[in-house]
């Protein structure tokens, strides 16, 4: 029988000796240049980490090539960050400049530290998921092509700005809590294939999957029927029942959300909120999406105070100013109408004309 239940390898065996030695004893860090971090320990030891952008979806050739770089400059040590950037860990300072030169020569992009736009946390898209309303890798490449000077530190931003992409409202990843989120959405109700449903789907599970109670059993067909008036096209029923289909290449697209954060710095964590209800899927470059994201970044960067995240900026100026400054239309789609929606309404006379 195969060996199982042995867990991941112990990280302590995989970290560079300088980290093993100074574990829990780091004194401070600085950012000597965009994408390069310097950590100094109580013992006086120094560790540099050089962060590069990675597309997350990579080939084994890519892994081998960055491993070769780590072999040459970092005694074979590297790590991946929680935003899927790669970091080369350099304990020998004399190897820092040659490493950076080599990375630049090979076309790797250094950056993503401090106040910047770091990697985009994203999902599977049309590469691998059957629920994908839009693509992830494609949009991410387009957005980062447009915004790369913000990654490298060439263009400065007032605070860090996190971008995330999720290809459906399941929101695998960080879209509900990012400064700018791109989320795939449907705009047509699902179709039920009655014949296929019988024997393929658990009817009670399918009914219970609907957040608005739009699904009820259909005794005549031994299937289910969907009340289109109640359906808001979340596609949750299609996830649990393969006989219900929702994909619609013409009307599917993406929505854009703003103002989420997870850190507790200055202000409490926030959910992101709807800014743009719909933009079309327009592969391979998604110009409408990339332009909208770039525009949001530019308006925020021009108006926010030093250290002010997107959501903090909006809280200060108010949503009516946000829509005014960005020039985005405010529509009925922006008004919450789900269960506890009243908490999101304005219950004060304080507002700006």
């Amino acid at each position, binding site marked *: 029988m195969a060996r199982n239940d042995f867990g991941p390898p112990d990280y302590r065996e995989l970290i560079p000796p300088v980290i093993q030695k100074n574990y829990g004893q780091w004194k401070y860090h600085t950012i000597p240049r965009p994408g390069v971090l310097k950590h100094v320990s109580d013992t006086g030891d120094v560790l540099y980490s050089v962060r590069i952008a990675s597309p997350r979806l990579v080939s084994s050739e890519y892994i081998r090539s960055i491993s070769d770089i780590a072999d040459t400059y970092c005694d074979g040590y590297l790590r991946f960050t929680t935003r899927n950037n790669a970091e080369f860990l350099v304990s020998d300072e004399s190897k820092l400049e040659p490493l950076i030169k080599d990375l630049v020569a090979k076309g790797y992009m250094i950056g993503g530290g401090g106040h910047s736009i770091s990697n985009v946390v994203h999902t599977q898209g049309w590469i691998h998921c059957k629920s994908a309303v839009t693509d992830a890798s494609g949009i991410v490449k387009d957005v980062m092509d447009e915004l790369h000077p913000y990654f490298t530190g060439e263009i400065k931003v007032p605070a860090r700005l996190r971008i995330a992409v999720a290809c459906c409202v399941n929101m695998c990843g960080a879209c509900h809590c990012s400064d700018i989120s791109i989320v795939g959405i449907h705009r047509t109700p699902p179709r039920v294939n009655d014949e296929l449903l019988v024997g393929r789907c*658990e009817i009670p599970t399918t009914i219970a999957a609907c957040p608005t109670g739009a699904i009820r059993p259909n005794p005549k067909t031994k299937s289910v029927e969907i009340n289109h008036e109640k359906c808001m096209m979340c596609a949750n029923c299609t996830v649990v029942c393969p006989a219900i289909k929702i994909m619609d290449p013409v009307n599917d697209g993406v929505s854009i959300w703003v103002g989420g954060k997870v850190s507790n710095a200055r202000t409490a964590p926030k959910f992101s909120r709807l800014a743009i209800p719909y933009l079309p899927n327009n592969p391979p470059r998604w110009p409408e999406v990339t332009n909208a994201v770039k525009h949001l970044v530019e308006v925020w960067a021009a108006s926010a105070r030093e250290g002010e995240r997107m959501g903090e900026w909006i809280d200060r100026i108010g949503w009516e100013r946000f829509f005014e400054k960005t020039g985005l239309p405010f529509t009925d789609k922006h008004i919450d109408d789900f269960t506890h929606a009243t908490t999101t309404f304005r219950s004060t006379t304080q507002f700006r004309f």
Partner: protein
Amino acid sequence: MGDILVKGVAIEVDEDGFIVDPAVWSTDLVEVFAKDEGIEALTEQHWKVINYLRDYFKQYGIAPMIRKLCKDTGFSLKEIYELFPSGPAKGACKLAGLPKPTGCV
């Protein structure tokens, strides 16, 4: 999609080996599935789980939750895995002819 042979009769299964039409389920089919699932011989205990799953599905239209399965059959999850090496969903439900588990599995 593909077919498996049960006593010379071709039966349609999906790419994960689940039967497409619940009406074709038979005890012979279970014998054939068991071999693919690494079960050497079907015991009374296997049948207890399979019959329980079939009865539950017939009554409620869904597969039982794992805790319910364990409680009602008296088998711990560990024992279920000993009986069905690929687990209650991929193993036991497949043998019982229930629909393939869905969602983020």
